[in-house]
């Protein structure tokens, strides 16, 4: 149980709860909240010393953010 693992678990749980029950029920709020569990999972992958998993995960989360921004712009941002 390294500090990274425990902190990553806490951030992952916090981010999941916050994304599921956001303050304002808006696509933008949920999209910004979705970046928090990414950091939690990053710290958990860090505690297992997996370089390739870290790089792949960073690239995939950023690409998914791009795609979701495109989708939200097309729908107009109304839930």
């Amino acid at each position, binding site marked *: 149980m*390294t500090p990274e693992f425990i902190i990553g678990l806490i951030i992952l749980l916090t981010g999941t709860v916050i994304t599921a029950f956001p303050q304002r029920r808006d696509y933008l709020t949920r999209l910004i909240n979705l970046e928090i569990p990414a950091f939690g999972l990053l710290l958990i992958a860090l*505690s*297992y*010393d997996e370089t390739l998993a870290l790089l792949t995960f960073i690239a995939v989360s950023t690409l998914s953010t791009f795609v979701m921004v495109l989708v939200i712009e097309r729908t107009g941002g109304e839930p």
Partner: protein
Amino acid sequence: MVQQAPRGCLEVEELIPASPDQVALWVCSLVALYGAVRVITEPDTLRKLPFLNVFSFAISGIIALMIPHPLALVAAVAYFVGSTFESNAIASVYAGGMEKGEHRE
């Protein structure tokens, strides 16, 4: 599951920083903590950005102090320029929204 090598146990002598690099590291960490607290407690959104700048100064100093390797210098410069670019974009978009007549407080 990969077995982790145990980190060094805490002893009383380790709490008092001995070498000058350790003292500098502790000073930078305390400044980073102070900057984070001030970012959260500041009520105005635009006035949060100077405190975020203090925080990123402290973090890029810590990056260079932790590993004395030439690549750590590149990491410090990359983090600092990235953080500055981010706050620049946030301030510009916030100001542009205010010029269009949208009231934001």
